[in-house]
């Protein structure tokens, strides 16, 4: 029964994780996984109680209470923007717990363990430790306690290689001899690698690192499962280990980087994360745009000269149709001087057979914008440049523009940060609520459509 209950918990983990991969089912997925965890905990507690060996009640209860209060407070108090670092910290605790389970087993069983158990114990210990230290460095960087910029250890990659080598050798000796001290040495070495390995990675790449550490914490848990011969741990741990790895790969693909590039670029191995412009912008992918658009109630599309250059009129129509099918209200805001000739946008939108009634001119669009969830700017620039409103020294000061910055979210599709016809920079691109989607307008809209249809 115990084993089958763990299997049931494992199935709940699987279903939960599956749920988490799609927006519609994510919340339910998380709760299923939590249910699985509750089941696993009840099973083990019942088992321990039935066993009624000299169970160390106060340790167990004390631990659970402390952990619950600490974890609960952290989770409920944290601000939205600080969540990534909190996840990193939680992950560190998880890795630490697996290392501690291994450590407890070393203390309890010692050299008596069969080779296979010794191996998994060593793995659980070292992987758990690197997860612990690495996660806390990541936490520190994101929280601003540690410097966000990449800092390589003295000696760079070589130092890390040596530390890892020593740690590995110590672990092998530990397995062979069963001598606890070698376990601790191995754990210490790998713990240091966690620190020196994560320190050189820039703050922007941290999410990928956290995801990788998350995968490691899953593997550590699975190894701990081998140590205590528990299928529940193996299922849950292996699941997270594999899923975390795939997720890490996906995240780096979304950033157009390889994992190796992310992990080692701080050592001078690859290009810096920000390659366009000097001021930071928030970059978006097709999927980001798709989620923002698909979950909006009202969308305003602002076409500009770039739409014409990319001949993206059909693509914009297709995307709008897909959004309308999801009950999103889509309008188009046409600025009087968008494009390069009077009525340029009208020619294109008429070709794509977009209903005239959906086209709003400046006077009609501006009052709508504060009530608009998402503005999608397609190859427009000057006509949405807020310096026309705010900067008396700007050559376009005084020109009426589309006040897109009054909308909740702004997505700008263009190929780069280069200026438009008027040749001036656009402060809109650097604003808090603006996401820059750098791509050819047609390709971007087509990719976003594909992403919307996948949601």
């Amino acid at each position, binding site marked *: 029964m115990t084993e089958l209950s763990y299997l049931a918990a494992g199935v709940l983990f699987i279903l939960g994780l599956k749920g988490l991969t799609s927006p519609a089912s994510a919340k339910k997925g998380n709760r299923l996984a939590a249910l699985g965890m509750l089941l696993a905990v009840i099973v083990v507690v019942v088992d321990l109680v039935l066993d009624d060996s000299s169970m160390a009640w106060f340790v167990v209860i004390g631990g659970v209470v402390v952990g619950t209060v600490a974890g609960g407070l952290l989770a409920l108090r944290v601000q939205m923007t600080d969540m990534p670092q909190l996840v990193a910290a939680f992950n560190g605790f998880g890795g630490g717990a697996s290392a501690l389970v291994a450590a407890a087993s070393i203390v309890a069983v010692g050299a008596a363990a069969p080779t296979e158990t010794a191996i998994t114990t060593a793995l659980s210990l070292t992987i758990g430790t690197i997860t612990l230290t690495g996660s806390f460095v990541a936490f520190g960087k994101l929280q601003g306690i540690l410097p966000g910029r990449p800092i390589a250890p003295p000696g760079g990659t070589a130092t890390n290689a040596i530390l890892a080598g020593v740690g590995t050798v110590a672990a092998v000796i530990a397995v062979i001899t069963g001598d606890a001290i070698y376990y601790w040495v191995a754990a210490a070495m790998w713990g240091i690698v966690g620190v020196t390995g994560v320190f050189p990675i820039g703050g922007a790449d941290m999410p990928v690192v956290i995801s990788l550490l998350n995968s490691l914490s899953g593997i550590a848990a699975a190894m701990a499962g081998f140590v205590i011969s528990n299928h529940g741990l193996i299922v849950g741990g292996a699941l997270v280990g594999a899923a975390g790895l795939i997720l890490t790969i996906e995240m780096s693909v979304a950033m157009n980087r390889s994992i190796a590039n992310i992990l080692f670029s701080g050592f001078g191995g690859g290009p810096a994360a920000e390659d366009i412009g000097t001021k930071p912008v928030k970059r978006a992918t097709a999927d980001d745009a798709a989620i923002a658009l698909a979950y909006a109630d009202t969308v305003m599309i602002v076409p500009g000269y770039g739409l014409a250059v990319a001949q993206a009129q059909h693509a914009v129509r297709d995307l709008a149709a897909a959004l309308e099918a999801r009950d999103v209200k889509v309008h188009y805001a046409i600025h*009087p001087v968008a494009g390069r000739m009077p009525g340029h946008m009208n020619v294109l939108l008429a070709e794509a*057979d977009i209903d005239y009634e959906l086209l709003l*001119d400046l006077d009609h669009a501006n009052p709508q914008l504060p009530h608009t969830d998402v503005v999608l700017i397609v190859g427009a620039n000057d006509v949405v440049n807020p310096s026309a409103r705010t900067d008396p020294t700007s050559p376009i000061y005084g020109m009426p523009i589309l006040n897109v910055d009054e909308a909740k979210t702004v997505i700008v599709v263009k190929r780069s940060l280069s200026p438009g016809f008027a040749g001036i920079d656009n402060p809109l691109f650097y604003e808090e609520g603006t996401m820059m989607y750098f791509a050819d307008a047609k390709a971007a809209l087509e990719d976003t459509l594909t992403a919307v249809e996948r949601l």
Partner: protein
Amino acid sequence: MHIGVPNETTRAERRVATSPQVIAALIAEGADVSVESGAGTAAGFTDEVLAGAGAEIVASLTDTTPLDILLRVTPPDDDALKLIRDGGAVIGLLAPAANAERYLAQSHIAAVALESLPRSTLAQSMDALSSQATAAGYAAVLLGASSMPKFMPMMVTAAGTVPPAQVLVLGVGVAGLMAIATAKRLGAVVYAYDIRPETKEQVESLGGRFVDAPTQEMDEGGYARAVDDETAAKQREILSDIVASSDLVITTAQVPGRAAPRLIDRADVERMEPGTVIVDMAAASGGNVEGSVPGEVVEIGGVKVFGPDDLASTVAADSSRMLARNLLELVKRMTVDGELLIDPDDPVVGPALVKRETPDE
């Protein structure tokens, strides 16, 4: 076989009943083709071009041997029919309703009226009504658009937003469909109406909007019947409002063998804004619009009402080419081994032959 093509060009008529391509095709079929000098000039086919295609250019068809076939854009006079040999034929847009008696009087020849060809899928390659209506529908929109003081498309510009023109097409046969398509291309918002209910789908297939006024099933021939007075009144009421808000109205409604239905009264015209335009393509057969005059433009309360009689001629090169192709296909169907052979039982040619009405019709 000897085929003759006369010069028919006048102010209103710039078409010619042949084209360089068709001359070459007829010659390949073994025929001789004589064309009167200057016949194609207004359509852009100079004498040199036609001669280059193989035609014999003659000052007048009277100079040449009797013809097996005379090809015509318009109804010929009796002298022209004399050019044809015994047993020969005249083929063209012969306006049989008005001229049947004249043709029958010349009993030595057969008169084949393109207007009377069946409107079947099989006969479509000879269907000159369709090809010329295509040209006319296109030309009507260009005429209307260039006579309007406003743009067809919508434009949002630094000098204000120009709303799209509203175009109304009444009668959705071939010309009406072409008018809808052309106005839509130019960026107008197009409404259309026809008495036949199946045209709704056709209008929408071109991006137009169908006006929700009463419709009525067509007769067996596929043509609309004349409508009763009550329906007509109801129609006019609904149409009057949409006419009043239109910038350009193009009317094409016809009922074969009858006068064109009156769809727009003078009062409706007067409700329109000054500067708006009506093109009444049915003016010559009675007019869909009260007050329209064939071949002229009249102004009614600031509204220009055109009754053009030469629309297909304004794109004379292409309309002549299409007409010539129609004639070529018909000539091919009427010849066997290079000899003219008129089969009154042929499902295509038979109905087109001008005959004395049989009592049961």
